[in-house]
C-alpha cells in the first residue's frame, strides 16, 4: 500500500503524516511536492495540515491552484481515497471537492487541544474499523476550523450520511458540530482534527491510527472483490 503526502509551501504536518504511515501503520509513503502531477503509483492521497501559502487571502485559497491539485481532482474522480486534514480540509473545500467552508473560530482564538469526538458514520473507507457512535479523542490545532455551510447543503450532508465526525463539545462554532465530512461518493474525507498526531500511546492516544487502518482495510477488501 503506498500513500502520497503532498507538501505545499507552508505545510507543516506533512512529516507527521509520513511518520504515521511509515512508522505507526507500517506502510509505504512518499512526501511529494505540490508541483508533482503524476499520482499513478499511489493508493491514497493525503493533504496535510499547516498554513499553505501563508493562509494568504483565505486558508487553502491559493493552494487549490497548485499543479498537484488537478491530479488530485482526477484521482478523486476515479474513486480512490483522498484525505485532507486541517489545512488539507480547507484546501479541499476551496477546490470544490467538498462542500462548505472553514472560517474563523467563533472565539477567534487558535485552539490547540485534545477534543472528544463521535464517529457518526462508520461505513466509509476511512472509518470502517471504528464502531458507530464510538467516542474517540483526537487533537485539534486551528484558527479557521469553524465549518459553515448553508441550510440546503447541511440537509443534503445529513441525507447522504456525509457527516463522519462530530465534536462532542463544539470548540469552534461549526455548524451541527461538524468535525469531518466526506463527499457524496464517500471517497474524499476532510477533517479538522489530526489523526496523524494520535497514532501511538506515547503521543497521548491511538484513536487516529484506527482511521489509517480503516483505509488499509478498505483497499484490501476492494482488491479482493
Amino acid at each position, binding site marked *: 500500500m503506498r500513500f502520497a503526502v503532498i507538501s505545499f509551501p507552508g505545510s507543516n504536518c506533512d512529516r507527521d503524516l509520513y511518520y504515521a504511515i511509515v512508522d505507526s501503520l507500517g506502510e509505504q509513503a512518499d512526501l511529494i511536492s505540490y508541483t508533482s502531477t503524476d499520482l499513478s503509483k499511489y493508493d491514497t492521497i493525503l493533504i496535510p495540515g499547516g498554513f499553505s501559502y501563508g493562509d494568504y*487571502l*483565505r486558508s487553502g*485559497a491559493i493552494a487549490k*491552484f497548485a499543479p498537484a491539485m488537478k491530479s488530485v481532482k482526477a484521482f478523486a474522480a476515479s474513486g480512490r481515497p483522498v484525505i485532507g486534514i486541517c489545512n488539507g480540509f480547507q484546501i479541499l*473545500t*476551496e477546490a470544490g471537492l467538498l462542500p*462548505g*467552508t472553514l*472560517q*474563523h*473560530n*467563533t*472565539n*477567534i482564538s487558535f485552539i490547540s487541544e485534545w477534543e472528544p469526538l463521535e464517529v457518526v458514520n462508520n461505513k466509509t473507507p476511512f472509518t470502517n474499523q471504528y464502531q458507530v457512535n464510538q467516542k474517540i479523542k483526537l487533537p485539534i490545532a486551528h484558527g479557521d476550523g*469553524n465549518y*459553515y*455551510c*448553508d441550510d440546503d447543503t447541511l440537509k443534503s450532508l445529513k441525507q447522504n450520511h456525509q457527516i463522519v465526525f462530530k465534536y462532542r463539545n463544539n470548540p469552534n*462554532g461549526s455548524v451541527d458540530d461538524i468535525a469531518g465530512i466526506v463527499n457524496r461518493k464517500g471517497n474524499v474525507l476532510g477533517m479538522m482534527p489530526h489523526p496523524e498526531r494520535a497514532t501511538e500511546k506515547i503521543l497521548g492516544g491511538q484513536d487516529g491510527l484506527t482511521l489509517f487502518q480503516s483505509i488499509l482495510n478498505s483497499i484490501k477488501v476492494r482488491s479482493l472483490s
Partner: protein
Amino acid sequence: MYLAKIYVSHKKSILDPQGEAIKSALHRLNYNDVNSITQGKYFITKLDSQSKSDADQTVRSICKDLLVNQNMETYQYELKEV
C-alpha cells in the same frame, strides 16, 4: 487602463467572528454607539483591458475564481477608466 476597487465582506446571514471581536473591543473602549461592524477585504487592481466591458468581465471572473469565497462572502466593486 481601468481601475477596479473591489470590496469583499461576509454575507449578512453569516456570523463574522472578527467583526464581532472588534465590536466588543470598541464597546470596551466605551464606543457604545457602535451598533455593528464587519471586517472585509479591499482589493485595488489595474487592468489593461481593451474596453470597459472587458474589464468588467475580468473583475467578475477574478472575484469568482479567487478573490471571493461565495459560500460565505459577498462583493461589490467600482470600475473606472484611468
